[in-house]
């Protein structure tokens, strides 16, 4: 058994194959595994089905032509309502979509985590979610109430990518911010589970910064740990850092304008993670 699970972003992304279904943790433009997403952008992989409470992770993957389908509860940049790349791809019909209510999305991951083929839920009843998802079915209660509920099919993931604040080399991982989001559920639903963190620390020091219950992932649900300082940039990784709002605005402005996008991609996405972080530092200094 491998107990030191540390790896590089390029090593874990090399495990992807065309057509895979990948889950991306975080929530909107918060605690997204952006360094791992950037590694996917650099890789040759394509035709991905991306399962995400989406933010700029979805936008960047769509921009790079990596995506065949997006399964989502929403895609937003939080302080900017819509991700321009995702919006344009939907309007043009260049990607397939499975649009769920947020609760249904969680039910789909829960079903996969429990190795059930589906779970019943009340979410979605009486809404257009059923109309826009013709693949959804309903299921009738086998009891006297005879009630009809939405049946959400299990959303199994080939790979889950999540970003947390700390982990030990064995894959016990910790969030130090206010919200775990659904990162644990993404890992439970996936065959391979890759976590990037701000800092890899000794097991014994994990509880120095946060209480026991901040240990969101245990080593049995993690296959590799990637140390990636500022790896969530430009999304939040509080308390290590907040969202880089100026950079996000720049991303959104360039994403909105196909004429400006090559300039953004050339400057920030053409090199490796080190080159990205270097350009971000320069971008920040330019505003001073």
């Amino acid at each position: 058994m491998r107990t030191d699970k540390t790896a590089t972003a390029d090593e874990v992304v090399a495990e992807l194959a065309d057509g895979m279904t990948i889950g991306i943790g975080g929530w909107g433009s918060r605690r997204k595994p952006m360094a791992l997403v950037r590694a996917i952008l650099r890789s040759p992989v394509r035709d991905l089905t991306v399962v995400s409470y989406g933010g700029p992770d979805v936008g960047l993957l769509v921009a790079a032509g990596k995506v065949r389908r997006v399964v989502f509860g929403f895609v937003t940049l939080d302080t900017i309502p819509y991700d321009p790349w995702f919006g344009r791809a939907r309007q043009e019909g260049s990607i397939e979509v499975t649009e769920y209510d947020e609760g249904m999305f969680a039910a789909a991951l829960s079903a996969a985590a429990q190795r059930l083929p589906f779970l019943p839920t009340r979410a979605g009843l009486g809404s257009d979610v059923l109309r826009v998802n013709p693949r959804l079915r309903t299921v009738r209660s086998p009891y006297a109430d005879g009630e009809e509920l939405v049946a959400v099919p299990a959303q199994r993931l080939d790979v889950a990518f999540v970003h947390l604040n700390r982990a030990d080399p064995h894959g016990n991982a910790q969030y130090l911010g206010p919200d775990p989001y659904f990162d644990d559920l993404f890992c439970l639903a996936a065959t391979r589970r890759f976590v990037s963190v701000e800092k890899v620390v000794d097991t014994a020091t994990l509880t120095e910064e946060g209480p026991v219950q901040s240990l969101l992932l245990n080593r049995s649900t993690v296959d590799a740990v990637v140390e990636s300082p500022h790896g969530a940039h430009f999304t939040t990784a509080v308390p290590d850092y907040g969202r880089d709002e100026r950079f996000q605005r720049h991303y959104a402005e360039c994403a909105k304008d196909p004429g400006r996008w090559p300039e953004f991609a050339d400057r920030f996405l053409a090199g490796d993670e080190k080159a990205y972080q270097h350009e971000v530092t320069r971008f920040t200094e330019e505003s001073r």
Partner: protein
Amino acid sequence: MRNANEVGNVAEIVSLAEGVGRLVHDGDMVALEGFTHLIPHAAGQEIIRQRRRDLTLVRMTPDIVYDQLIGAGCARKLIFSWGGNPGVGSLHRFRDAVQNGHPVPLEIEEHSHAGMANRYVAGASGLPFAVLRGYSGTDLPRHTDTIKQITCPFTGEQLAAVPALNPDVSIIHAQRADRAGNVQIWGLVGVQKEAVLAARRSLVTVEEVVDELEPVPGQLVLPSWAVTCVAEVPHGAHPSYAQGYYERDNAYYEKWDSIGRKRDSFEDWLREKVFTMEGAK
């Protein structure tokens, strides 16, 4: 479905006698939960003392707490998973009720632990039923007609369905509550949260009511608005244990075998340990 509290209402702090008197009525479906840890024994004995009848008792692992209620004739039906005196043997009052109808006949509905936990989750979620991989290859579906099959509408696979549990009242024991009625519980937390959220009314007995709930690793907090009544009952889980307060009284569990084995010895116990305490707070 639920009417535990109107919006904005908070838990009331009452005596154990008042809590049971107000919340537990003859004929109710009552769940006393606590999985090996924090079993609400004092509340169970208060139900006996107040001579409730025709209860449908619900519990994962009915152990001594339900042997006492069943032996005292409080129950008409038991919905459960695994019944016994843990580490000791049979529950003789439970056995006498099922086999001989003494002191009153007891109907039983037997499930698996996973089935019962899923039933509480469904009840707490406002769903009519839960789906699980379970019961297959066992005789339980032959004896328990509430276990149904459900077909996955995507794969055609046959899975088990169990109906939601929504007790009239759920009773649990916790370590602490604050004066506003927020409840704090830690250690093995079993299905206590689900049992309270699934119930129409709830009573939480606690080791102590404090000014402020100091955070504890692994804690679970039930907000005041999710609880109907809180009663301070130190040692209320005895002979089970309360992490941070006292250990399990293993000798009591062993001794219960001889107390519960015979009708006479049980009646003596009831008189000496339950009814002579009548009116006690």
